[in-house]
């Protein structure tokens, strides 16, 4: 019980620590509103005013983008914090405490995510209603499935970031790798639904983990089908578990070869 309590308190402290900044919150909401507005203008200008493409109308596309962006914006700082802590040597303080370091990072990340989700969710809903109104063809009974997929997308994103963050044990600077992964997640599912990509790229993307961060939940929200739910969610689970295991593994390897910087 005490063991569980410590991680719960880490989550809570993470929430507290992230609630401090109202300016941060306002800037985040503003950014969210701005990118969605730009994308909406883009879609309207580029290919249609009415009509649709690959089953997406402007209304659905805006809601797709809101759902996808919500997952991406509600991420934790785990990459940056791992990267900085390993580089600065501050990790020394985190290592000699009686807890699992990976679980500690996870709990702290969940605190951050909770705060961001709590602000991004109402902002996203509000923007959607203001810009394009209610989602066309919304299937209320599919919402639990969308929630599950969203949670999995967020978790997968967390563990991928944690995994890349912990490569700092080996590499002097892994920001480039992080950047590449971010761009891949952006191209494969955030910027465009996979359906808009050439067939061959779409098929490859469906094997890669990146699309299972934002594409899966956004796709399920805007055009739910049981068939897609059953094909995508297991892969989301699989990739999440895989990256969680990889993070734990890379941590246990990395910490053994740790060379605490700064003496």
């Amino acid at each position, binding site marked *: 019980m*005490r*063991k569980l*309590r*410590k991680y719960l*308190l*880490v989550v809570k*402290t993470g929430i*507290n*620590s992230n609630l*401090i*900044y109202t300016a941060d919150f306002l800037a985040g909401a503003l950014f969210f509103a701005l990118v969605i507005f730009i994308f909406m203008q883009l879609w309207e200008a580029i290919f249609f005013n009415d009509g649709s493409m690959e089953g997406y109308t402007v209304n659905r596309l805006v809601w797709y983008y809101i759902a996808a962006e919500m997952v991406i914006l509600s991420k934790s700082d785990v990459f940056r914090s791992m990267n900085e802590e390993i580089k*600065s*040597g*501050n990790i*020394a*303080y985190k*290592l*000699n*405490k*009686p*807890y699992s370091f990976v679980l500690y990072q996870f709990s702290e990340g969940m605190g951050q995510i909770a705060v961001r989700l709590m602000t991004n969710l109402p902002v996203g809903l509000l923007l959607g209603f203001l810009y394009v109104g209610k989602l066309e063809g919304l299937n209320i009974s599919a919402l639990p499935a969308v929630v599950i997929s969203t949670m999995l997308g967020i978790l997968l994103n967390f563990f991928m970031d944690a995994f890349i963050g912990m490569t700092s044990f080996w590499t*002097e600077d892994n920001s480039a790798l992080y950047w590449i992964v971010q761009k891949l997640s952006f191209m494969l599912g955030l910027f465009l639904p996979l359906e808009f990509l050439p067939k061959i790229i779409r098929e490859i993307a469906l094997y890669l983990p990146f699309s299972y961060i934002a594409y899966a939940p956004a796709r399920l929200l805007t055009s739910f089908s049981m068939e897609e739910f059953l094909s995508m969610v297991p892969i989301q689970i699989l990739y999440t578990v895989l990256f969680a295991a990889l993070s734990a593994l890379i941590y246990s390897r990395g910490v*053994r070869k*740790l*060379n*605490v*910087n*700064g*003496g």
Partner: protein
Amino acid sequence: MTTLRDGEAGNNTVIVARDLRKVFRTKIKKEGFTQSVKSLVKPEYREIEAVHGISLEVPRGELIAFLGPNGAGKSTTIKMLTGILNATSGSMLVLGLDPGKQRKSLSFRIGSVFGQKSQLWFHLPPMDSFRLLGAIYEMDSKLLDKRIDEIVELFEIGELMDIPVRKLSLGQRMRCEFAASILHKPEIIFLDEPTIGLDVLVKQKIRELITRLNKEEKTTIFLTSHDIGDVEHLCSRAVIINHGKIVMDSSVKALKYGYLKKKVIDVKFAAISNHTMLEGLNILKRKGLSMKLEVDEGDGIQEVMLRLMQAGSIVDVTISDIPMEKIIGDIYTDKGLEGINSNTHTDSYAGTDMDTDRYTDTDTGTGSTTAGNSGGEGE
């Protein structure tokens, strides 16, 4: 790696290290673009031996100072003893546990303060971090409340408890850092440069707290510092390391009095009438009518003073001890080691001859190379 068994070094010993070594493998990169590309394709490594066979025993309740210039291996040793870094070879037992293998069990019983790093949540008031640490150390909430009250009073940080850490001054923050590290009543506390960057008053306060902690809670204190004052005011034993090896292990008293058998005389003449009286004196430095001499304690002082008075009319004279900083600085640079049986824990440290012609300092003698620098080892 040989293993030590608990109790091997006696029940009263809390730290035992035998022939501890740590080798880092560091990627090397020569300057220039082509070399950068080359190091990408075929990286070259160099092995750096940060700790080179350190053996040490620390009895319970001791206040021990671990000294050495930057890069001597102090922090690396602390990090091995606390289980953060794995030793390359050698063996150690801290509170009967092997830090490399039993880091978690050990972490319940030790505390640490790294002067240049922080364990408090930056955006939250210290109280939040204290509560979290209490939970991390699995403390009973009633006990934790009691302990927090106790520590808040001891450290006089009551008025800081609800201010976000980022708004605290360095001195205030360090007091809170220190308080945070002893919440769980550690048996040993490792302090890695706890007074770095602090002003004189805060330094004194921190030293006072360390002493009280040692006396009242019988906590063993393992301290590294660049600040000789820390050592002089706090510690009973000093271990000096350089290039990853122990060059001296002695009681602070012995260290001090070994050198204190000599005094430095600064004298200023209005005029010197009889130069022959100065012949044969150990003059370290001379500039016009001012000079600095070294003399042996006891009869030496009287004799030298008499001769100085006969040499001319004296305007000003000061007789002082050799500063601690100078002593340590000399040991760092291997100058003060002649006649010392290094690497022995001995209380008899008399009869040391200082290599006097290297005493080139201008006035107070505090300018020795590595000692006394509180702004050292930066990140």
